[in-house]
């Protein structure tokens, strides 16, 4: 199962020649914000958190994710008073197109809803649940524990039935 992040929601990108759309200003702002995000984005605080359920399924859907991203980017735009459009902001276009393709509209009401969601930084909707933004590990013991578990999982792979390895390689495909 491929993980879904803001960067791999693939949709065709509509173009905005001349900015004639009434939504153009908003989209332009969002694009500018994305540019800034992409140019400085080595901070995990920008992650959209997707918490799998115990069966490994990610319950956040593209609509939730797109809305969350739009809101976050919109808030960043407002905070930084950014402007301008560049070629590198494909991701936001994808996110916006994704939203449209699912029947969403780009308007100020959406922006308000999205901003409200993004400001709820402690949670992202996962299905009908609210899942807390995870706290990171902080102690050496936690990091060592994680490393040992991963090491164990690697060593155990080839001891499992062929069907198990099939599942792993299919995941990778």
């Amino acid at each position: 199962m491929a993980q879904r992040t803001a960067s791999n929601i693939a949709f065709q990108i509509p173009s905005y020649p001349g900015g004639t759309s009434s939504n153009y200003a908003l989209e332009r702002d969002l694009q500018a914000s994305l540019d800034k995000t992409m140019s400085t984005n080595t901070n995990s605080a920008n992650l959209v958190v997707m918490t799998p359920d115990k069966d490994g399924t990610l319950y956040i859907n593209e609509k939730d994710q797109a809305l969350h991203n739009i809101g976050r980017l919109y808030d960043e735009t407002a905070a930084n008073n950014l402007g301008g459009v560049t070629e590198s902001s494909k991701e936001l276009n994808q996110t916006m197109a994704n939203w449209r393709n699912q029947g969403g509209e780009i308007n100020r009401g959406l922006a308000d809803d999205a901003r409200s969601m993004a400001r709820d930084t402690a949670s992202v909707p996962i299905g009908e649940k609210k899942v807390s933004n995870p706290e990171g590990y902080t102690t050496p013991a936690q990091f060592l524990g994680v490393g040992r578990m991963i090491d164990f999982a690697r060593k155990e792979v080839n001891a499992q039935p062929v069907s198990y390895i099939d599942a792993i390689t299919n995941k990778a495909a």
Partner: protein
Amino acid sequence: MSLFQKAITLLTGSPKDMDTRPLKSLTERELIELESDIGRYLFGPVPRGHRREFFCLDDHTWIWYEQWKNEQGKDQERTTRYEVHPNGILKSYDGGNYGYLDADEMQNFGVAVRLYYEQVMRGIYKRDPATGELLTTLPSSAPNVTMSI
């Protein structure tokens, strides 16, 4: 061969090993590459023209590798190594520049490792991150390590 490829070859064996491995088994190198497919996106989108890898090398070492072209079109790369020590996480890059992570960087690293762990365990190894047990009905001999998640 990039520094990253050399490093991973030294640490986990030559890629040629994959040609001779038995059918249906996976080398540690291949598993690390699968994990890095998840790890590379934990810090946000990979900028165009960049290659990024982030993975757990062994139980106390994490690697962040980034490759890109500079303004002159020349390949640039940086390998950052995070080592778990009893008194903190020691970061080094490009073979030197040692220093323990400060509070902000430690927080980001901690979140990234947690997300990596949870997604890798569930998505690749089909195991419960909290217990290490398989998510299938297959028996498991997971070590008695309980993560406080």
